[in-house]
């Protein structure tokens, strides 16, 4: 398709064409994109695993620097937003745009709240003295390091990997919230999604669930281990 806006049947594979993967272009494109996202996070997570595995000395025990309670709540929030996304998808599949709009709005709010809480968490951590380069001198955490509660040798790596991994995850969540909000105002509100054509919802949903999936891994390996 060059420039005709084919609004009908967006969710069918191109035709006439040789048989491909039997899914429409946008969905296939999103899966291909997600494959590359897997490799991006593999680089970040792999770096963390390798650095931690090869670190000389102990790694900080979980729960000392990071606030587990608030992050657990955040995890729960993201899981909820994932389920509300899939509810929106189910609603439009059943041809109920009103319900779809409600659940999409819930997803956007859930995602935005996640980002908000993460920003709050970052501010809190920096105030306590946890920064990307390690522990700020003269801070609360520096005293813990001096007391030996936290290992001095690996705090630099801890800060580096923590902020990079969660930061890029947060960036992805932000992108997701922005694109969902864009779809909400330009497509969902004007009622452009129908039982036949809800490709935008499915595609952005795939992205959103992927971001949730990454968080599930990150939460476990960064906060709990």
């Amino acid at each position, binding site marked *: 398709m*060059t420039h005709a806006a084919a609004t009908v049947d967006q969710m069918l594979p191109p035709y006439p064409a040789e048989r*491909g*993967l039997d899914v429409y272009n946008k969905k296939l494109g999103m899966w291909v994109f997600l494959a590359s996202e897997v*490799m991006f996070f593999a680089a970040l997570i792999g770096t963390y695993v390798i650095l931690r595995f090869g670190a000389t000395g102990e790694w900080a025990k979980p729960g000392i620097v990071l606030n587990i309670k608030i992050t657990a709540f955040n995890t729960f929030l993201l899981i909820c937003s994932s389920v509300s996304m899939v509810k929106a998808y189910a609603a439009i599949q059943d041809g109920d745009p009103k319900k779809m709009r409600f659940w999409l709005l819930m997803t956007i709010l859930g995602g935005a709240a996640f980002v908000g809480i993460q920003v709050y968490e970052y501010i809190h951590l920096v105030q306590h003295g946890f920064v990307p*380069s390690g522990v700020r001198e003269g801070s609360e955490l520096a005293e813990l390091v001096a007391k030996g509660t936290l290992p001095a040798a690996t705090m630099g790596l801890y*800060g*580096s990997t923590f902020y*990079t991994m969660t930061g890029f995850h947060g960036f992805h969540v932000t992108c997701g919230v922005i694109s969902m909000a864009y779809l909400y105002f330009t497509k969902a509100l004007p009622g452009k999604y129908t039982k036949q054509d809800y490709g935008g919802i499915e595609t952005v949903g795939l992205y959103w669930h992927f971001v949730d999936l990454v968080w599930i891994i990150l939460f476990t390996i960064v906060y709990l281990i």
Partner: protein
Amino acid sequence: MTTVAATAHTTPAHHDDRSFIRKYIFSTDHKIIGIQFLFVSLFFLLIGGLLAMQMRWQLAYPGQPMPGGGILPESMAPGGVILPEYYIQLVTMHGTFMVFFAIMPLLVGVYANFLIPLKIGTHDMAFPRINMWSFWAFFAAGLVMLSSLFVPDGAARAGWTMYAPLSARHDYSGASIGQELWSVSIILVGLSSILGSLNYITTIINNRAPGMTWFRMPLSVWSLFITAILGLLALPVLSGAAIMLLFDQIIGTHFFDPAAGGQALLWQHLFWFFGHPEVYILILPAMGMVSDIVANGSRKPIFGYHSMVFAIIAIAFLGWIVWGHHMFMSGMNPTLGSSFMVSTLVIAVPSAVKVFNWMGTMWRGNIQFHVPMLNAVAFVAMFAIGGLSGIYMAATPVDMFIHDTYFIVAHLHYVLFGGSLFALFGAIVYWYPKMFGRMMSERWGKVHFWLTFVLYNCVFFPMHILGMGGMMRRLYDPSQYTFLQPYQPMNVFISISAFLLFATQVIFFVNFWWSLKKGKPAPQNPWNDNGLEWSLPSPAPHGNWEKVPTVYRGPYEFSSPQAAEDFLPQYTKLPTDREPVRAPVAGH
């Protein structure tokens, strides 16, 4: 449903009422985007060449003022004499420009964009607007990289491989903004490649013309498809690594800084985990296009089409498990070295299969030596040398001696210049008529080819000897070492050949520009080829076909007994051909 679908997917009429900006600048037409990539990356190819010339001057005449070097600022070359800090910028930037901004976009940006929709028979890419963003991300990356040459303390200085911690800490390299701009630019390159790759993959999987089955696709499309998969999965790793490097440089993280617990080898693992698939990104499309051209020039079907396809897939797969062969001497776990050595040697097998199949294609052919064919044959000959010299460094004990010497420099230039660039010279001439509607000059093409072929060997073959003599890479002044002083005449010989080689490229550039306006108008199918793109007028119109063509056979039916001429296009319907039937899909 079928009827609805069909109407929804018919092509718009061909009248083209887009404004100039939509048509030529922020264009979403895959052919225009390909041409934009072509102009920009040819420019960077020229920049990369100019940087190489300065290096060659310093290597041949160390410490002597470079002619015309007076225009360079004091911080680079006072009085035209190249400083060591400028020399390592030259080394770094030559590699970076050639790999990321010349060869890779020339092969993938230009030819994946231009050829995929034309050769598989579709109107455009699956996501034309994402395609446009891919170009502009690349353009921005190029501008950032170019601008780094002009910042106060100069461009990045750690080699194109940016080994940490030299690259990660400014007090080690002596450059700050330049290093950071390098990282930023590479992140953008990664973004551009990912956007491009996802487009190519989706388009090839889903948008092939009726009858264009997987095993009727031209090898160029096959190789571009596999390349896109490599790019899709490798470039995000580079982007991730470059982001971490940038953080080390600007916000004080410690990923690659051993002084604070980081790991220096981690950068090498990340970089080469991307870097080795990247090596195949830089050669596979060239192989694919050479296959097309060799079959056309020999007027014979490609020999062993299926084994060619499987060789591409095998190379791509093995390409993921050989990255450690760049790190044999890095202090890597020696057991890991053993396994990387074996996988590296094994990857020579599919490459050999490809070379033998090209030869098999030429065997008992009726070989026409048009300019693309000359370049394609040169590709086969030179790639064979580059591939064979790779075996030396794959064998770890020998690599212990030749690693980081000019032997490596010779090897990589035999593959990248003798391989990719010769294929590109062929491809540019071959598809020029479909891009611009005119032919490039045959005579000047031949002059350019022969001069390049001879001079190129004069430049890079002696580098093997230098490497065997133990001359290290990236040396500002080899005459510092007593044992390298006797090799100085050879350095002078290489440099003079390099200057002439560079001058020869002027012929190509003049031919290219002159033919744009004054070239012979191109017929629809100047090379008597079988591909779908030749069913279109030259240049191919916006939207390509009114109605996508139907494909009846494979792309290499040359000299078929079924046809009177010595070619039988994929879109020609013979009385014996049946219409392709597509299995019904839910919904259609």
